[in-house]
């Protein structure tokens, strides 16, 4: 893409079926408006990489049948309880599950960020995760004098990283503040698609006091303006979560039928006021 500024549907169209899609955790900046656009376009066969966990975003995508593989350290609605469509999908074995642990997801992304095939990681030894993740290896630390096992996890190179941030400037730089896992995701991914609250006229590189929180434009392939784009989740430093909407989802999604009704009424068919 030569012009990074696109609309939500064009952004959703830029995520092909079958993509390995990286999404951030609930408090980091979740592209919920873009997720609704993805549901509208009927995305399928995603390999969802949750960095390192997810909530309603993953649950909705799973509920619509968009997810073939789920790589995550946890899926939960937090204070609103378990994630019902996730739980149901595991019961019916309708998705391939790759259980992880948070730092292993970060390590896999950092390996991709450095063009490496793998990263070593502390811990994990003795966890049954090692049994169910045959792609994780244990080697003997070549630098230790006595035998010392250490885990290696393979690189995670998403086809697309998708997240929501407060601001972008006209040059396509995105302000992500101290949510630097978003930067790691963008470094690791082949392409990065972002929704932002606002596109602003100021140049983010004009003031060194503010540059530290900027994802530079050369990592960013598409930006769509989406006011309240994390709704009903909160966007750190910008707005709080919508408790009523999250409670309503948690209740509705307990049954497949309830989820379908919710989806028709709120999830996708009716564009949100802001979209």
């Amino acid at each position, binding site marked *: 893409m030569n012009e990074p500024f696109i609309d939500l549907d064009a952004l959703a169209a830029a995520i092909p079926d079958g993509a390995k899609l990286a999404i951030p955790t609930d408090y980091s900046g979740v592209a919920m408006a873009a997720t609704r656009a993805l549901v509208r376009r009927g995305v399928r066969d995603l390999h969802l990489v949750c960095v390192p*966990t997810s909530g309603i975003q993953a649950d909705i995508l799973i509920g619509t049948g968009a997810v073939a593989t789920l790589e995550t*350290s*946890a899926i939960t609605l937090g*204070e609103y309880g378990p994630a019902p469509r996730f739980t149901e999908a595991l019961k019916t074995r309708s998705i391939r599950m790759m*259980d992880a642990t948070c730092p292993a997801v*970060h390590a896999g992304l950092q390996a991709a960020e450095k063009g490496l095939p793998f990263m070593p990681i502390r811990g994990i030894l003795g966890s*049954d995760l090692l049994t169910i993740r045959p792609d994780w290896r244990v080697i003997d630390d070549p630098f230790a004098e006595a035998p010392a096992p250490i885990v290696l996890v393979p690189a995670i190179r998403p086809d697309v990283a998708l997240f929501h941030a407060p601001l972008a400037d006209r040059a396509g730089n995105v302000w992500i503040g101290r949510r630097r896992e978003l930067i790691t995701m963008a470094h690791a991914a082949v392409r990065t698609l972002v929704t932002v609250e606002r596109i602003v006229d100021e140049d983010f590189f004009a003031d060194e006091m503010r540059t530290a929180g900027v994802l530079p434009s050369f990592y960013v392939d598409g930006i769509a303006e989406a006011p309240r784009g994390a709704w009903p989740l909160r966007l750190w430093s910008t707005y709080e979560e919508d408790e009523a909407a999250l409670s309503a989802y948690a209740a509705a999604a307990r049954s497949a039928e309830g989820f379908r009704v919710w989806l028709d009424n709120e999830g996708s068919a009716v564009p949100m006021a802001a979209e």
Partner: protein
Amino acid sequence: MSEIRTEELLIAVIARLLGPCRHVAVGASSPIPAAGAMLRRAQGDGRMTVNLLGSEAQNRFTSGGVELFDCAAQGRIDAFFLGGGQIDGQGNINLVGIGDYPDNKVRWPGSFGSAYLYHLVPNVILFREEHSRRVFVPKVDFVSAPGISGPEVNRPGGPKALLTGMALFDFDRARPGFRLRSVHPGYTLRDIEENTGFAFEHEADPETTEPPDPATLALIRGPIAAQLAETYPRFAERVFGSPAASAAE
């Protein structure tokens, strides 16, 4: 001063367990551990760091989601809290599900950072309010993170204590296993035995968990409740009501 609530007792016990810690991190959705850590900070010299994941006001990390894990590996995090759908007498914890993976009869959210932080944080406090044989099992069905490791494993961290709604246990990594330290007011040794699915050491007549003194209680109901409300407004309102009202009790 009104009657001491269970949450207040647990918050006070957690603050005591954190005694000399300089840096305590608390996972998301953990209001009682968060309050315990903030209480301990309020009781100290003002230099203790408390980082609540998912919070902005109570979080000083600036390097993204990986920083908690890096910081733990650097030895800079003294205490962390882990829970478990199942916890067994060897200190193994299961956050994945009941039954055989992947055909779990019951599926929980997943292992989060447990498989890493349990190895690296020296004082992991296992915290689970529900004290039942459903939770405290002879052997977990899935080891999200093991309680102990062999000598070949680089492991500075591990379980230090287990706190439930009924009792407080210490963990002895050498034996290994839990030892009952105290029973919360209102419960007996018999209650603990009946509701724990694994064997544990105990005195014939175990101590009663010391409740918070009036000064501590005032701290919890005043400034701690107010701080907690920034990150956990719904929990704070449920337990303490309006912080201003509580502070005036």
